[in-house]
């Protein structure tokens, strides 16, 4: 589904990705872990076309996408939930959900019903300004916005940041349900180990712009020191 091959990219002058190789199977949920500044967010942004790529390829559903522009990548079926959510605070919930559907005919630009089935709180807040939602609701809106055009791959960057554990658990349950119902593939960058263990099937570790290791999530459950090895400063 997604194959990243020897990807190099720079960000703010420094070379942030130095030959990243990894791949994702359809329907898989993979976590990407590593300390801050190791290139996880840059990798997400590179897949999304928001960072200039120096060399290497990104293949999505068999086609190279590394030279496409962001909106084309989004239209091919990749949904992006950035770090810090970046919802449009001045827009209502409905407007936020309408934005990714602009390419459709005028009468099909309302958020699909299923979105509100997974996120009932958003249905209650439809006409509220997104900036006035709580942090957890904003995160749900950011995920719903990414899912509205029905993508086949979802990129999640630090979705648990600043949220209390009960809400993180709620988001995990929703994501698992969507993955089970629709076969959505998920790539998640996350520091929250319990969220990763609840959600992901496999985990890869990033260090200094490269993938340096991978393991199934069961291994981490059995021995959490694997994570400490890659995450300790």
């Amino acid at each position, binding site marked *: 589904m997604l194959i990243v091959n020897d990807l190099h990219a720079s960000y703010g002058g420094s070379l942030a990705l130095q030959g990243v190789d990894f791949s994702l199977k359809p329907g898989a949920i993979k976590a990407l872990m590593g300390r801050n500044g190791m290139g996880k967010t840059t990798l997400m942004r590179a897949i999304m*076309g*928001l960072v200039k790529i120096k060399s290497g390829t990104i293949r999505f559903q068999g086609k190279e996408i590394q030279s496409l522009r*962001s909106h084309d990548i989004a239209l091919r079926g990749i949904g*992006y939930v*950035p770090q810090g959510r970046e919802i449009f605070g001045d827009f209502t919930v409905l407007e936020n959900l309408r*934005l*990714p559907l*602009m390419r459709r005919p005028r009468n099909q*630009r309302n958020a699909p019903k299923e979105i509100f089935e997974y996120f009932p709180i958003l249905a209650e807040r439809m006409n509220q300004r997104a*900036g006035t939602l709580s942090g957890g609701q904003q995160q749900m809106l950011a995920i719903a916005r990414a899912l509205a055009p029905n993508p086949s791959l979802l990129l999640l960057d630090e979705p648990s940041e600043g949220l209390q554990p009960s809400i993180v658990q709620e988001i995990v349950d929703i994501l698992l349900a969507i993955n089970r119902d629709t076969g959505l593939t998920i790539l998640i960058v996350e520091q929250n180990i319990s969220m990763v263990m609840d959600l992901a099937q496999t985990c890869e570790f990033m260090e200094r712009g490269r993938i340096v290791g991978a393991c199934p999530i069961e291994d981490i459950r059995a021995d959490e020191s694997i994570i400490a090895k890659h995450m300790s400063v």
Partner: protein
Amino acid sequence: MADLIIQLLNGLNYILILILVAMGLVIIFGLMKVINMAHGEFFLLGAYTVVLTDRLGLGFWVGLILAPIVVGLLGAVLELTLIRHLYKRFLDTILATWGVSIIIKQTIIIIFGPAGLMTQPPLPQLISFGSLEYPAYRLFIMAVSLSVIAVTFYVFYKTDLGLASRAVIANAPMASACGINTRRMYRITFTFGSALAGLAGATMAPLMSCDPQMGLGFFIPAFLAILVGGAGTLSGILAGGSVVGGSESFISAVYSPVTAQIVVFSIAIIIIRARPQGLLGGKGRG
């Protein structure tokens, strides 16, 4: 009394045209962070489109319809060939569009000469309200600019195109990650903003003597109106345009245009000093 009302109406006339010019500038700046120094010359080209159709015997009305189309197309060509290579290079866009403004001005001088040119008044009759008489054409200008301003606000705040453009203003990378073609939005915006200036120039042509420097006379107050009202907000322009246009036309009528310039600039300096974000400018306003 009648004199005062006429002065007020003339002032309103000027305010509305100023808002039309400023709106084009501010939409382009808001979306693309480009200060279009050639905006006054787009106004100029709109006026000279009317001069040209007047000379060719096609009349004013053809010119009025042609002006926004011609200037809008020119804006589109400029965006494609020049501006689009300079995004994110703020100073370079100022220099480049300034260069364009000089080219346009000199081309007009080569074709039409440096002297002021008059056109036939399209609606010479006066409309009377009781004892008051007011030129029909000025009423027409007010109606046209009011409708164009209303339509612009409607498009910006009530349509999907407006929603997409406000998303690009708020967060361009995120908007593109939502599938919005930001480059296409830039092209549409630049074309539309240019067309607004062209239309404003065309409507003003019959009221004044058209000369190659006339663009500056609208560009500077429009720019001032944006700074006073608050850059980045459409409603700020209404306030800024009213303050700048209103005080300028009122003081010109009572004292002299020179005094008006001095007073308007002083007012602008005081407002900008006291409220650097402009009258209506604030954080997070679309």
